[in-house]
């Protein structure tokens, strides 16, 4: 049991770190606000969830607290992305090279 938990924690830490790093990489590489929010808001949250799983398996955090935190993150993550995207649209930051734009049909290619 100890070994299994240790293995789980190890894999979760490695995968969580990987996804957090990829989230930051996406933040740098992607072209505009909306695509960058995809990287931080999704990959980032997924990475933190994996790190929480690792913490629950291998530290005295406990599964109850970890699951509550995961649920809170899953509720808060998309709401943050949406709030930032909506704010960006309202102050007039628009997509770079859109394929289609239903919000501004006149500007689409």
């Amino acid at each position, binding site marked *: 049991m100890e070994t299994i938990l240790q293995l789980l924690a190890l894999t979760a830490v490695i995968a969580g770190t990987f996804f957090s790093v990829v989230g930051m990489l996406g933040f740098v*590489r992607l072209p505009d606000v909306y695509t960058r929010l995809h990287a931080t808001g999704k990959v980032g949250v997924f990475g933190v969830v994996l790190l929480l799983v690792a913490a629950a398996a291998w530290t005295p955090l406990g599964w109850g607290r970890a699951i509550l935190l995961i649920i809170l993150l899953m509720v808060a993550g998309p*709401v943050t992305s949406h709030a930032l995207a909506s704010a960006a649209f309202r102050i007039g930051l628009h997509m770079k090279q859109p394929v289609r734009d239903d919000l501004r049909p006149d500007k689409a290619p």
Partner: protein
Amino acid sequence: MVSYVRAVLLLTLVYLALTSNLQASNIVVGVLLAVGVLALLRPQRRVTDWRAAGTAVVAVLRYIFVLAHDMVVSGMQVARIVLDPKLPIQPGIIAIPSGCQSELGTALSAHAITLAPGEMVVEIDDDGVMYTHVLDMAHAETAVAEAQELRVALLNKIFP
């Protein structure tokens, strides 16, 4: 009354999960805190239909499963796009009708869309049409419509 008991039960469960201590005294403290929290809230009356409760519970479980699956898949998908040297994105904003009547249903389905792979709600208008930013338009439209149908069906079972 039923919804009050249910709220007390849920709040107590959250308290016990947070403290991870199942002693009788701690449970009593949890119940007292739950009653205190509910005393501070505005009471809400909602009719509960017990025949629909069974299907609602199944729908909630399926919905949570769909959300968790979406989160994992979207993490993988966005990671693949970011790590690809050519950066294969075709961003666009498409309009998706939410298909839910209530405000709560619309809010939840916007939340579910934002959690789904490659999609993010930017704006919602008065009719409940969600303007969704899509990372990869190439195979987005059919996939988005199908996923939205599934989620709306589940949400309509949860909030009839």
